[in-house]
């Protein structure tokens, strides 16, 4: 969080240390005391802090999620990031002045959906799932009053966020229910005589020959067999990098670029944030002359998963 603030982020999302947010890994999140402290440091630097409460409260257990919303209001977070309609209603009723951002986990992919959440709960900003092409994003922005935030850099979810149960199919825990995908506790690595095998709750996700790099075993990024052909049947281990599209994203009126940070080291966060800050400032100053600096490209390429990156769904061919 400190790295993001110091490197030029306008807003930082944080999560509490439990399953109320979609990055439910103890080391990544804050307890309430740390959240208060971080909030005041960020505010002192003029940076907004938003609390992610973007998993789905489980039946009979909504209390923990509601407490998180109450905490955000009490401590003075600038907004809460929500996915569950019931929780949005709670927030709008109890804390009408607390801003609601619609999480990507709410799977709102059209302006009809976003405008509906806006009418129902006064949603101020919506984060778009990584499914729309650039022209579809443009059409959506034109048809809504909500601010639109899109993913710029980080892991690439190939499935629509909030609509993927692959992880719970294999392990019992999913982003929607527990805030995790392919959880580390279900991962087993085994070195065989000529290959390194990785399994998720017993399911073989991939086998690496000597010399092949093995990344974190997210289940949709393994190699599988279809019709006797073995390949990355769902997605390669690669990252989303939309920096090249920045002038377009700014021109069509995207309000904010989201950079994945909570699953990353402070050094990573600092480097990526600095690059995007510079690029955004430069693009805002002179959009028609914007060009990618080699240093930006080099820094981002180095930080991508498997050193591979893609424009994802922004580029139609990816689909």
């Amino acid at each position, binding site marked *: 969080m400190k790295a993001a603030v110091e490197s030029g982020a306008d807003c930082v999302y944080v999560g509490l240390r439990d399953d109320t947010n979609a990055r439910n890994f103890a080391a990544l999140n804050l307890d309430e005391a740390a959240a208060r402290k971080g909030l005041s440091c960020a505010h002192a630097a003029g940076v907004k802090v938003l609390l992610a409460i973007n998993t789905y409260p*489980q039946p*009979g257990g909504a209390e923990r999620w509601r407490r998180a919303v109450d905490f955000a209001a009490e401590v003075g977070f600038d907004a809460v990031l929500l996915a569950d309609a019931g929780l949005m209603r709670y927030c709008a009723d109890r804390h009408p002045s607390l801003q609601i951002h619609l999480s990507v986990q709410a799977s709102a992919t059209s302006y*009809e*959906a976003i405008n509906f959440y806006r009418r129902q709960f006064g949603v101020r900003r919506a984060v778009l799932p990584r499914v729309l092409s650039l022209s579809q994003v443009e059409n959506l922005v034109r048809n809504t009053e909500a601010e639109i935030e899109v993913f710029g850099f980080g892991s690439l979810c190939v499935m*629509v966020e909030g609509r993927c149960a692959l992880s719970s*199919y294999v392990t019992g825990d999913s982003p929607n229910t527990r805030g995790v995908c392919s959880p580390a506790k279900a991962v087993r690595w085994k070195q065989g005589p000529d290959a390194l095998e990785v399994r998720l709750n017993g399911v073989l996700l*991939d086998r690496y020959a000597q010399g092949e790099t093995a990344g974190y075993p997210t289940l949709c990024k393994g190699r*599988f067999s279809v019709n006797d052909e073995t390949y990355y049947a769902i997605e390669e281990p690669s990252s989303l990098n939309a920096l090249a599209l920045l002038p377009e994203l700014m021109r069509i009126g995207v309000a904010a670029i989201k950079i994945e940070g909570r699953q990353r080291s402070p050094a990573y966060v600092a480097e990526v944030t600095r690059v995007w800050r510079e690029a955004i400032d430069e693009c805002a100053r002179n959009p028609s002359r914007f060009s990618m600096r080699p240093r930006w490209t080099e820094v981002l390429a180095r930080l991508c998963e498997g050193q591979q990156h893609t424009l994802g769904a922004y580029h139609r061919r990816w689909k």
Partner: protein
Amino acid sequence: MKLAVGPVLYYWSREALLDFYAEVARSSADVVYLGEVVCSRRHSLRFEDWLGLARELRSAGKEVVLSSQALLESEAELRTLRQLARNGEFTVEANDASALALLAGAPGFVAGPHLNVYNETTLAWIAELGAKRWVPPVELGREALRVLQQKRPSGLETEVFAYGRLPLAFSARCFTARHYDLPKDDCRFRCLEHSAGLPLATRDGEPFLTLNGTQTQSARVYDLSAATGELRELGVDILRISPQASRFDEILSVFRALIEGTISAGDACRRLEATRSVAACNGYWHGQPGMEYRIDA
């Protein structure tokens, strides 16, 4: 309990669809869901064709519901959705928030399995918007359902996905087109060749998933036949059977017999097993990983 035929999730030819629904018209199913839920490029039947089919099934005594597409991206897809929402004749199943937006306030829609209704507050909200029925997400198990059934708003029916490969995920990417190295916009409709989807196995040969265009399903068939008694006790009103390319009449007959209590769970299980070439799963129901299969004591 009633028996529902879910929307056909695969891409079948016009002839295959018409044959399938002719059989459904003669079957013991009470409710039939029609329409394209997965991909707007699939066009064996147009909107008017679906409406015609809906009227025929209604004449055959079925309750007909028109299902909306789960993942919307384009303006054209929104136009189709508006047409569906305004059809004026049949109930609509909402499968994303865009559909909710268009159906809210008009009483009597179905809140489909692809809406994220995981808790009692959201369930109450859906009912206030005008839902007459809801289908829980497939991840939701028995104990979670028990809590929600106790808090269920009055007059709201519950339908549970009870048989078929699990619809687990949607993507902007088409995995069938990717398999054939084709762009999605020029996919040559290769899904037509896979009436039960394209099987995906792990590198040690275990069936794992099923690629169905932009949808990813389980390889195993979710089978809640052994839980029919529990479903009834929980006050579930309808069991959804997801269309399969082969022996669908037999699957429906087994579930009808289970509902009427004329067959034992063991016999039902054996007869269902004989209709498929892959293993069953029911883990979600037991609060376990979805791929697992538990035999209840």
